[in-house]
């Protein structure tokens, strides 16, 4: 099986779907001839033709509106938004239209669209190339939100998203496009090829939406994360030497509540980690849910380790980032807390 990095895995998923299903087409800013600013669509226009993979005007609202109309026709459009920060001009289209079309039309029309977008910080992109907007989608009934943490998952989840008949926001942690970043500053990135999850089948396969992945089993504390933070958490757990169970949520809507609850009922402790800012972030929902479902099992306060409640600050991205040190400290606090 070929070793792929995350970009290659995403490219492969798109390639496979273009090949299999004539209703699949791909568009977005610079995705055609150029192959995307992160190269996720590299070669697809050349291979499948300009009608299957093309550049659009710079108009995120227009891109999503076009995708919704195509979806209503019966196609399965995959739209790329160049950076997750730039989904916001299309937010109304996603919330008021894509998410509600099936509901309001009594099931006559629906929106089988996939919106791919690189998200998160770590490339010194400043406040407009570093957004982690997942909470803004999680609150919207009718949307699904998926976040892979490895090449294998990225391909399998993306194929599931494209085949799904509901609108899926597919957020790609750009920080780990090239390798499983553990959050340590100044340490050279390990390439994906050194990681098991870079073994990606060439053909079609799926990873189901709504099924979390227990990436590290443990008994002492449950750590919930997704995307880049999965790797940071693994590193932090190593550092602390805790008997932690690390769960990669993979999709936040639908959320795999059973896996989460089962784990926390077992460990009695829970640390939640994300890069987005804290206040009203997705960690809040996880914390509330865990508290509701596991109250009588909890032996320590649930901890949230997150970005600060500021815009994303260019020069301070390492200070903003909830790196292994902060995660370790939280795990330690959580494990050591005595009721």
């Amino acid at each position, binding site marked *: 099986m070929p070793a792929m990095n995350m970009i290659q895995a995403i490219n492969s998923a798109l390639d496979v779907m273009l090949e299999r299903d004539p209703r699949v087409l791909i568009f977005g800013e610079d995705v055609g001839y150029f192959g995307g600013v992160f190269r996720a669509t590299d070669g697809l226009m050349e291979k499948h033709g300009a009608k299957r993979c093309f550049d659009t005007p710079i*108009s995120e609202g227009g891109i999503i509106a076009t995708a919704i109309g*195509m979806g209503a026709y019966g196609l399965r459009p995959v739209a790329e938004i160049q950076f997750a920060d730039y989904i916001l001009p299309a937010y109304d289209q996603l919330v008021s239209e894509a998410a509600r079309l099936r509901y309001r039309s009594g099931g006559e029309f629906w929106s089988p669209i996939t919106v791919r977008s690189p998200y998160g910080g770590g490339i010194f992109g400043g406040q407009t190339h570093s957004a982690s907007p997942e909470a803004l989608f999680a609150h919207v009934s009718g949307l699904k939100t998926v976040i892979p943490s490895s090449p294998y998952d990225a391909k399998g989840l993306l194929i599931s998203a494209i085949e799904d008949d509901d609108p899926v926001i597919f957020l790609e942690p750009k920080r780990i496009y090239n390798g499983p970043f553990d959050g340590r500053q100044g340490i050279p990135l390990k390439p994906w090829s050194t990681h098991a999850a870079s073994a990606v089948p060439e053909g079609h396969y799926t990873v189901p939406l709504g099924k979390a992945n227990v990436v590290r089993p443990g008994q002492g504390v449950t750590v919930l994360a997704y995307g880049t933070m999965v790797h940071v958490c693994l590193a932090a757990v190593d550092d602390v030497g805790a008997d932690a169970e690390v769960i990669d949520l993979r999709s936040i809507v639908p959320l795999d509540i059973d896996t989460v609850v089962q784990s926390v009922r077992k460990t009695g402790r829970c640390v939640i980690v994300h890069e987005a800012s804290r206040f009203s972030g997705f960690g809040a929902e996880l914390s509330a849910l865990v508290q509701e479902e596991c109250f009588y099992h909890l032996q320590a306060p649930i901890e949230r380790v997150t970005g600060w409640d500021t815009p994303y600050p260019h020069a301070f991205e390492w200070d903003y980032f909830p790196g292994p040190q902060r995660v370790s400290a939280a795990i330690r606090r959580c494990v050591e807390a005595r009721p």
Partner: protein
Amino acid sequence: MLKNSRLQLHIPRPPARPGETPDFSYVDLQPAGACRRPPTDEAESRMRDLPFGLVRVLDDDGSAVGPWAPELGDEHLKRGLRAMVLTRIFDDRMFKCHRQGKTSFFMKSTGEEALGAAPSMVLGMEDMCFPTYRVVSYLMARDYPLADLVNQIFSNAADPLKGRQLPILYSARRYGFYSLSGNLGSRFGHAVGWAMASAYMEDDKIALAYVGEGTTAEGDFHEALTFASVFHAPVILAITNNQWAISSFQGTAGGQETTFAACSLGYGIPGLRVDGNDFLAVHAATAWAAERARSNLGATLIEFVTYRAAGHSTSDDPTRYRPSDEPRHWPLGDPIARLKNHMIRRGFWSEEEHAALEAECDRQVREAVKAGEEIGTLGKSKPGVEEMFECVYKVPDWRLIRQRQELGV
């Protein structure tokens, strides 16, 4: 060299507010028949006068004149007239139903009945209309069951949209009528995407989208036009300029600066300005644009010049912001009266037949309302509460299942 060290903020003002004399001199009229009709494959650069003209067919005597006069058979016109009459009677009846507490909301299209009816007869059942809330005449021209409209408006147990949607925000896929929403303008781009999909699949279906003149100010309008232009989408983009957006006159959307049809010029798309109260002109303009779309010549923008003769909705009282006699001064008349006169003049229609048509439409509407009332009006009957949890996703996730259980339905 003009200079003025003191700037002044300009706030547009309509010609007349309550208590003042209505004044429609601002509407740039042209005699019927005066506007030229280029071939559909004319280059846009040679049609840049059209957005400033006015396509009119019916003259003051009810004759069809000029190059845009379509050749339409008697039966076709009778069907068109019927759709318009039915719409008006339906609107009046449902408005009353609202006053009687039978529904939460309603909007009339009085005076604008030609805008849905004529295009509906130009397009096929496989084409797709992306409507506003004011073109129910599109469905009327296709014999959509009145009972389904009434049940949706009453949100009763037989509501085809399962009680989930505000009255009149219909969806009727089999009739080529896309799902409405209360958000203005946000479906304009869906029409473009849908049309692009048809072209992508090498099908022959085209799309038609409507937007109110007030709504042209939304970014969605521009984005849709941009995509339509760049990808030559086979779509007809229609602005219904009925002079008002709730209490805001058309100048609030830029109507005092140029015509709405002139928006087309920024996209290199042909633009027509059309008498929207002239069934034949609406028909001809739509047919012209449809031929362009079907011939792979791309999109057309049409401004239909019309007038919202009634209030904005059941929540509105237009006498608070415009002269109460303004509707009577509208210079382009009433679309039903004008088509009727034309048909009488052409000799295949009469006052008697018209009265009979009205009576027949009234009977049908009464029957549909009665049937709806028997099922139940707002609050007296509704779909099963479990419908609240359906269709959020294709398959509900645990949240919806648990919440449904919690509510015990």
